[in-house]
């Protein structure tokens, strides 16, 4: 990694974020920012609000107080612009089980831009799914199913990756591959927000721990 001049402002800023759910305080006065080239791991026990935090940042959950800013301006007014640069991979990875990996990725690529079949095939091959392009996803193993979604990371040109427990079903090879993808994305000037219980071995990894005050 080469030394880069710091951008004038962080990509994502979270200010005084608070969230209460079911009468229970998940977090409050949460402040952090994410700059280009940074990877932030959100840690915390089960039920500490990791997924909720990620969903709030993506705009899937609006039960919060505080402010979210993207590239220096409040997200609220420019959601489409933010979403065009965001790639969210949740617990449910948005891969339809009756469609093939190729058909699934064709759709998700079309939603955010263009990607020819050739690029999709090479992304699938890179994720170790060569030869499975045309078999229905319900015939894949859980790890392979997860890899279909991860192939989407290679295809989308998104500045911010928000990954919620992406390692769960992956084998050691898959874990290494995903870690490499995250590192490369950061090197290329992207930012990654990730929750995992997995010990990440990335240079310059930052961590945010939720639920320590309780």
């Amino acid at each position, binding site marked *: 990694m080469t030394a880069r001049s710091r951008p004038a402002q962080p990509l994502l800023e979270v200010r005084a974020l608070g969230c209460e759910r079911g009468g229970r305080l998940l977090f409050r006065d949460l402040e952090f920012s994410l700059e280009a080239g940074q990877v932030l791991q959100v840690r915390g026990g089960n039920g500490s609000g990791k997924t909720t935090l990620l969903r709030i940042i993506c705009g899937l959950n609006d039960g919060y107080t505080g402010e979210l800013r993207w590239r220096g301006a409040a997200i609220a007014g420019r959601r489409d612009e933010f979403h065009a640069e965001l790639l969210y991979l949740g617990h449910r990875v948005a891969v*339809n089980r009756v469609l093939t990996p190729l058909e699934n990725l064709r759709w*998700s690529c*079309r939603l*955010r831009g263009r990607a020819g079949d050739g690029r999709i095939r090479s992304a699938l091959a890179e994720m170790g799914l060569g030869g499975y392009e045309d078999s229905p996803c319900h015939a894949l193993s859980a790890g392979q199913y997860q890899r279909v979604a991860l192939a989407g990371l290679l295809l989308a040109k998104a500045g911010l990756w928000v990954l919620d427990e992406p390692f769960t079903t992956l084998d050691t090879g898959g874990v290494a591959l995903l870690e490499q993808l995250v590192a490369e*994305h950061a090197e290329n000037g*992207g930012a990654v927000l990730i929750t995992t219980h997995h010990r990440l071995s990335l240079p310059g990894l930052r961590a945010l721990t939720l639920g320590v005050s309780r």
Partner: protein
Amino acid sequence: MRRGEASPPLSSSRPGASAGAAFLATLKRDLLISLKRRNDILNPFMFFIIVVSLFPIGISPESAMLRQIAAGVVWIAVLLASMLSMDNLYRADYEDGSLEQLLLSSQPLYLLVFAKNIAHWLVSGLPVIVVSPLLAYMLALPAAGYPTLVASLLLGTPVVGLLGSIAVALTVGLGSRGLILAVITVPMSVPVLIFGTLAVQNALAGASPLGYLALLGAMLAAAVSLAPVATAAALRISLN
């Protein structure tokens, strides 16, 4: 790594996604899923045929009796069949997370929702309309009623589908929905049922059905322009 063209994501220009391409891709995807899950198409279709064919057996095989109720029976069976097919409109997408990706797309959500509604109508509404003349014949509907019946179904079934879509979107997050979908959708569909059957009865009586068909057309225009927006809002609430 083997990727040569991995350009820095932040300096790359905005992805060249267009709303039209996203609309077509969603339409195509949903049609493809339906083709692969034929049961979802076939069940409401078979249900429609079974319900209609029970009437001559249960009430009376006399054509004088049947022709009076023919239009109403066909229309009621269509409504019930569409309730049946409605349930899986957003469920699979909710369960596998695709719905979240739709919400996070930078394309207008109502447009993508509309694509899904069209796909759903093509596989659930259209087949029913295609066989409806055959079933109307079984119910001894006079020939004068056929064009009006088909026209009323062509205008009316999309309205039912679009209204139902709002109800499905509102309830998609609920675990067990049971009858709640029908309880929400049926009352909203009653005007469609009334105008649909009245149009056919007018045609049979020798009067012009155009007035009622125009009303159905107006309802369709309103549903097309408003229902996808309402569905999009309902989905955002459901996934919150």
